[in-house]
């Protein structure tokens, strides 16, 4: 019975997603909607798993079947009511290069799955292990935190949020556990990142920006390798893109005198939900949530600040409360947790600053996993980072800056060996920020809108 319900839930989510994909493909805007469709699917499956952990009975489980159908009806009506933008035209050679890059990435994913079916270290040590515990214990949250693992002093990371394991466990309940499930979920995460980045840049009505950012992502070796290793970093990056899209739309709407509180609430809600979902994927999501709140609060005009922050927090609250409850009430302490005085002492230690600088410099020189991207990005950022910037570039810049400062403080305060911590985590931290950093660069390169060139100016084709 439970398995039949899980199958029905998966069928409802995938069926609704397929219907929506078909409709958007017919309207030539599939790429702009593929990201949100994939994010809705993974969040919906995780929600089904979360409801299952509460053991509320059949009626609650049926919500998991009704919700995607209701979302499909809503999305269908929205698509009919609004005229969705056609996919921005891009130069043909970029499209060809993008298709070739995607084919090569897909080949690499297939070969990697064949050679290491369970993915990388984090995949089976954190995400798949938790998913298997959830599935094997009838979604008993307490049973996923066994004291034997919690006592282990070799980093079992039981405090990590459960969005991804819940979705994996829900899929495993429906179809049985097979290594191809996490592999497919990981590849879907990579596609979601590319599609979300495309969506954000395409909404700026700049054909080149969407193509360039998407191409850069698919041609970043670290990005492709992380998807093959089945790391959760990609889903986090995709949720961050969704959140950033809402944030940028809110910031843009503040300059428009016609904006009402009601029209402002929708992008703020998207942003709040996006950041809270990011915080439910990985613990770094909490830092991004704080950075999003800071960027919103500092960029909103004083008269609208309180309402904007309240809308953002109200949208984020439900999921953030669940995640916080799990993290601070149910799960054991994080391996990074320590008394504040100790953390401050570490941050104030000049030797650790030197060690951090040396570690970061070494990783910049050791750029193989990134190809030439990091160096090229640094050069382009210096070159194009000067002069006046648009609200969207300022918003993204603020977001990235706050996260960078936060990560530096986390590194300085880490109780682990600092060089080891940098070596094992920096690439993934960069990966979370990489799509947004590319979008920031695109926003800097685009002309700054003046009062006579509104943000929604007619599209410019580069073809």
């Amino acid at each position, binding site marked *: 019975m439970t398995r039949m319900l899980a199958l029905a839930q998966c069928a409802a989510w995938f069926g609704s997603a397929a219907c929506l994909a078909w409709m958007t493909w017919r309207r030539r805007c599939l790429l702009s909607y593929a990201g949100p469709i994939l994010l809705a699917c993974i969040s919906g499956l995780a929600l089904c798993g979360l409801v299952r952990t509460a053991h509320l009975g059949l009626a609650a489980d049926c919500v998991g079947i009704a919700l995607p159908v209701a979302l499909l009806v809503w999305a269908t009506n929205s698509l009919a009511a609004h005229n969705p933008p056609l996919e921005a035209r891009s130069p043909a050679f970029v499209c060809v290069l993008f298709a070739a890059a995607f084919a090569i990435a897909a080949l690499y994913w297939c070969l990697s799955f064949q050679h290491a079916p369970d993915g990388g270290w984090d995949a089976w040590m954190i995400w798949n292990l938790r998913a298997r515990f959830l599935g*094997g214990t009838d979604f008993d949250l307490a049973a996923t935190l066994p004291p034997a693992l919690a006592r282990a002093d070799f980093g079992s990371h039981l405090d990590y949020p459960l969005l991804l394991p819940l979705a994996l466990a829900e899929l495993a309940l429906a179809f049985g556990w097979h290594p191809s499930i996490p592999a497919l979920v990981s590849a879907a995460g990579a596609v979601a990142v590319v599609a979300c980045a495309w969506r954000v840049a395409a909404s700026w009505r700049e054909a080149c920006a969407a193509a360039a950012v998407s191409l850069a992502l698919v041609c970043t070796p670290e990005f492709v390798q992380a998807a093959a290793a089945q790391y959760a970093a990609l889903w986090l990056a995709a949720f961050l893109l969704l959140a950033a899209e809402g944030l940028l739309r809110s910031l843009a709407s503040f300059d428009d005198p016609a904006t009402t509180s009601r029209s402002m609430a929708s992008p703020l809600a998207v942003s709040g939900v996006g950041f809270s979902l990011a915080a439910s994927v990985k613990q770094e999501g909490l830092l991004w949530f704080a950075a999003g709140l800071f960027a919103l609060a500092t960029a909103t005009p004083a008269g609208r600040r309180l309402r904007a922050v309240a809308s953002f927090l109200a949208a984020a609250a439900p999921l953030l409360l669940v995640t916080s409850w799990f993290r601070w009430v149910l799960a054991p302490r994080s391996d990074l947790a320590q008394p504040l005085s100790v953390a401050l002492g570490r941050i104030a230690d000049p030797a650790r600053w030197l060690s951090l600088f040396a570690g970061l410099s070494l990783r910049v020189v050791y750029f193989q996993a990134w190809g030439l991207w990091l160096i090229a990005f640094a050069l382009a950022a210096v070159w194009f980072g000067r002069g006046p910037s648009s609200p969207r570039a300022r918003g993204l810049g603020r977001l990235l800056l706050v996260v960078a400062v936060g990560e530096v403080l986390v590194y300085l305060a880490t109780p682990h060996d600092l060089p080891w911590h940098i070596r094992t985590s920096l690439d993934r931290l960069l990966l979370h920020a990489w799509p947004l950093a590319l979008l920031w660069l695109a926003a800097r390169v685009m002309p700054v809108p003046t009062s006579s060139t509104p943000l929604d100016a007619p599209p410019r084709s580069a073809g």
Partner: protein
Amino acid sequence: MRSPWSTIAGLFLVCALVGLGRILWLSLLVARAPLQPSLAEDFAGLEQALPPGAAVLFLGDPPIDAAQESPGVRAYFRAACALAPHVLANEDQGQEFVLLVAADEARRDILASRTPGRIIARARVATLLQRTATR
């Protein structure tokens, strides 16, 4: 005047080609690398041999140490993932079942000789033993 997009396009094109080359090279490397067996293959049949909720002690060669991602820790987590939701304890508290994990059978036999018990299942990298007498 030259558009900033042409500068960016040139820069991105170079990086894209380098990135593609790197991914292609990695693909070739992966194709030549030896196959890494899946968890299901490494621990096949052990889960079925364990009764629900059984207490299991993990004994590995090399043993678990404090260093993250060391071979001992890696073996522990691979076993933990393969046998979940059975919890593998790393402290001997008289558990009824003992999971002996080592890459080759001879080393597992040495571990087994130190633990009184009856072998109830064997897999590619692990042997499951039921203790004859528990504390």
